[in-house]
């Protein structure tokens, strides 16, 4: 009976140890929402679809906003996805790893403009702003959000 109990406890302990790494495993891919907003300092309408980002854009002296596009990309770990920008450049989204605090490390790059590494919790955003558009005074704001 003692042997039987011993075996059961040992097996339970073994199963727990085997299962725990699986629970803590990093996701194989993450979903990232890339939204492209065109902003201008000229008076003009504010696209109602930009409303969710209004808080993030209010700090700038821009008066009109237009939602150009929004796209959700699935990025595999170690891989990357690209999103075309209206200024002819490309935003690259790479999924590097999951940090110890559980946030996802992404590498964002716009060719010829910037390369950056950010950590995002689910629902967390980083805004890439200012890549100039060819036609003058408008600029782009690109909120990048780790999908929930």
């Amino acid at each position: 009976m003692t042997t039987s109990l011993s075996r059961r406890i040992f097996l339970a302990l073994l199963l727990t140890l085997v299962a725990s790494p699986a629970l803590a495993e990093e996701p194989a891919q993450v979903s990232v929402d890339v939204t492209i907003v065109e902003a201008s300092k000229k008076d003009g309408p504010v696209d109602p679809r930009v409303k969710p980002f209004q808080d993030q854009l209010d700090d700038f002296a821009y008066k009109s906003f237009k939602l150009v596009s929004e796209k959700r990309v699935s990025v595999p770990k170690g891989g990357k996805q690209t999103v075309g920008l209206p200024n002819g450049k490309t935003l690259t989204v790479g999924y590097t790893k999951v940090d110890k605090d559980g946030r996802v490390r992404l590498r964002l790059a716009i060719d010829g403009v910037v390369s950056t590494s950010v950590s995002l919790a689910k629902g967390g955003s980083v805004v890439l702003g200012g890549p100039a558009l060819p036609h003058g005074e408008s600029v782009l704001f690109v909120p990048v959000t780790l999908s929930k």
Partner: protein
Amino acid sequence: MDPRNELLMLLSAYRDGELTPAEKARVEQALAQDPSLALRLSDWNALSGGVQATLQQAGDGLDDAAFLKGLQAKLPVAPSLSFGTRLSIWWSEMVQFRPLSLASGFAAAAVLVLGGSYLGAQALSGGGAVPVAPNAPLIAEAPKAPPPAPQPLGGGATAVASRTPKASTVREVKPHPDHDAIVFENHAGASVIFLRPTRK
């Protein structure tokens, strides 16, 4: 009991100091009247003292260290146990004598492991994640204020249902040589990397 035997018993007790005053007086009276009893008592005292002296002498002459060393030399040498064997013995003893302690310890370990995994999953989902202060320059931390409630996109938007700005950290920024980068945290708690062409 024969009075003679009874007197001998009392004499023995008298030598050991175990008599009542009345019995002691009786024995001393008998000793005074019967020289053979006095002789018997003298012999007993001599025999007892001799035995005690012999034992004391024997004890004084005993070399404890040598004795113990010799004793240990005769004992079988315990084999050195491997870690696995010791672990096995510990496990058997725990299961046999302290199964409840073992079970509670195992349960606590399971709670820690599963709880840690759960918290990790919660952090990944944004539930309770607290941003760690980054070491890299050009850092913006978020959030410091409670995030606003999720808002659906208007105008029949399809892709994203929630844009709640949450924890974000800019760890590294490498602007292209012909661009400058400004990193800050906006009032909504989101990290912003603002880029502009370098003025020549």
